[in-house]
């Protein structure tokens, strides 16, 4: 996928944020830098000829409503500038940023203030809580700016404080709270406004690793409830994966690749992306659905044991997967359990009813199950229906080949053998 192709996660829905051709040139005469860029000159040449620094160059992406988009890159890649162009804390030199149908770059100063109040909540790396205000007054800040009446804003602020788990801390000053709690307050301050869009700038980077992981999980959980559109800037690939959204990878002010972490692994746009994902935990990115294959033998649970045994022998397979009439996974049977069982139906013989993983779960959840079982586990969809199986060999293959995101051929739902 080239950087300029815009993958739309859900073509039917209108993008909440649409960024097109976003360019930022810092310096005394940005128009000169822009002119050079238009001639196809590179970043280094623009710096040499005009003294201007190209912060962003032709950045385009979409953010769907309710999506967590992670803008990722190392320091100096332009990711924070990009985030600040969305609410115009940094004024873009060229390009458009359309939020809910309004081009932010064209708003007057006055309209911009009103637009920020209505649409954006922002969370900062160093928390940026006001040290002279209590947690409550900090969380109230945005509402106060909007001119919400005192009783209503206290009520809404308290709700937000509860939402982030800071109940009872509202009368404390920020300096009395730990880093993790301060950032919860920062999050509450953004949530209290009930904004459409949350902009999070390296929000968890200043926290200890354990607290960072907790906050990531809580954000994902919170997002399920409140369904905000979140643009999250991070330099940490593991964080991007933990948040589970799409990733826009930036380098030197340009988008290198956008897609899921599994896309980056399976189909890296260039060597930079390849190196970026080199140390990634493959088992955390590749899903069970990505790694599964079609089961060798599927039998319905009303099949007699003798028949299943003969089919197993014929196919030369050790294990058969058992499903019910509706296709839901019911366990497995092997030759040992079938031998001498005669006409008993498989329903009564099936073992390992819990040896399955969800199709969308990362592969690492399958490892433990595989280690303790018969060398294969079932993969089921959200509805409980059998989708495929994963064997030890599949796991090794996934690790070895940095498995592609697309499911291998033949992993379509199996048809039961009658």
């Amino acid at each position, binding site marked *: 996928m080239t950087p300029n192709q815009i993958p739309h996660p859900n073509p039917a829905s209108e993008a909440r944020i649409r960024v097109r051709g976003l360019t930022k040139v810092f310096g005394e005469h940005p128009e000169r830098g822009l002119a050079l860029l238009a001639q196809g000159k590179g970043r280094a040449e623009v710096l040499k000829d005009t003294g201007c620094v190209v912060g962003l160059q032709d950045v385009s992406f979409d953010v769907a409503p309710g999506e967590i988009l992670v803008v990722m890159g190392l320091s100096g890649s332009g990711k924070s500038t990009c985030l600040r162009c969305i*609410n115009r*804390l940094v004024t873009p030199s060229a390009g458009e940023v359309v939020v809910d149908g309004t081009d932010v770059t064209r708003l007057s100063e006055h309209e*911009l*203030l*009103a*637009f*920020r*109040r*209505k649409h*954006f909540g*922002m969370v*900062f790396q*160093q928390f*940026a809580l*006001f*040290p*002279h205000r209590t947690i409550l007054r900090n969380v109230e*800040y*945005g509402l*106060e*700016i*909007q001119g919400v009446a005192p009783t209503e804003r206290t009520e809404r602020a308290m709700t937000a404080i509860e939402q982030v788990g800071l109940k009872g801390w509202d009368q404390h*000053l920020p*300096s*009395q709270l730990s880093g993790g709690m301060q950032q919860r307050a920062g999050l509450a301050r953004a949530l209290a*406004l009930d904004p459409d869009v949350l*902009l999070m700038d390296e929000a968890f980077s200043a926290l200890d690793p354990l607290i960072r992981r907790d906050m990531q999980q809580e954000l994902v959980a919170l997002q399920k409830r409140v369904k905000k559109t979140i643009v999250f800037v991070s330099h940490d690939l593991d964080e991007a994966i933990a948040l589970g959204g799409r990733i826009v990878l930036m380098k030197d002010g340009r988008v290198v690749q956008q897609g899921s972490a599994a896309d980056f692994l399976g189909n890296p746009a260039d060597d930079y992306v390849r190196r970026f994902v080199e140390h990634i935990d493959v088992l955390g990115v590749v899903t069970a659905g990505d790694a599964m294959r079609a089961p060798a033998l599927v039998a319905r649970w009303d099949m007699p044991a003798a028949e299943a045994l003969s089919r197993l022998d014929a196919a030369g397979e050790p294990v058969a997967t058992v499903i019910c009439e509706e296709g839901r996974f019911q366990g497995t049977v092997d030759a040992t359990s079938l031998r001498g069982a005669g006409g008993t139906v498989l329903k009564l013989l099936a073992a390992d009813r819990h040896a399955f993983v969800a199709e969308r779960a990362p592969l690492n959840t399958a490892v433990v199950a595989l280690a303790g079982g018969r060398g294969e586990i079932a993969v089921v969809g959200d509805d409980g229906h059998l989708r495929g199986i994963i064997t030890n060999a599949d796991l090794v293959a996934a690790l070895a080949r940095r498995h592609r995101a697309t499911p291998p051929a033949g992993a379509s739902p199996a048809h039961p053998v009658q």
Partner: protein
Amino acid sequence: MAFEIPQIPLADWCDAALDWATDHFSGVTRAISAVIGTGIETITDTLVSLPPWVVIVAVALLAWRLTTARIALLSAVGFAFLWNVGLWIPTMQSLVLVLVSTAFALMIGVPIGITAALSRRFWRVVGPLLDMMQTMPSFVYLIPAIPFFGLGAVSACFATIVFAMPPTIRLTALGILQTPPELVEAADAFGSSRWQKLFKVQLPLAIPTIMAGINQTIMLALSMVVIAAMIGAGGLGGEVWKAIQRLEAGAGFQAGIAIVVLAIILDRITQHVALRMRVDKKND
């Protein structure tokens, strides 16, 4: 043959400018002078008419409320000493002049400081002017003060305001400009207008710095009030001036030490208030 470079008539120019200003504005300034003069006199008379111990107790209580018991005790002992050495009335005169001048310096200086912080262009004009105001020998302000305000307390007050105001302006501007950029950005991100940002974020955070400026302004005001005795401002400076003219070293030192005592009291109280605001902000 001597080759002569004509002298720049700087003194003449200054005279011309002052004459022009006096001709046009002295009516106004004399009127102001009358009002302020009456004010200063009334306050001084009231303080002097009270029994000194009432004033001492009042100052001690105020200091105790604003600062600590130790500083309150120090203030009480200090004022008692000033009463004891027979310098009560000059002390009250100097104190009133210092407080009135400081009040004016703040009323003028804080808004100028805020404007300077918000407008880079204004700051470029005000900056050098402040440097000049502070480096100019303080006596010089006394000369033009006389034609505008006449001899006495009001001229002293005017000269003191000019001399003592710069730290307030400078530290107000500095305090606002020193607001951590991430907090300014946070205020912007939530759509704060310029004024909301100023009154809800920048000014509250600048208060400790502004207080440090106020402390300096009070100290400068005290030093100027002493010098202003030369134009008939009276007070403790007047006592020193009298001692110089009569060559009474003992009386001169006594008045000098009284000024030091007054300075220490004013400094400790204002410094402690500034410190407390800083501490309040950090960890309650």
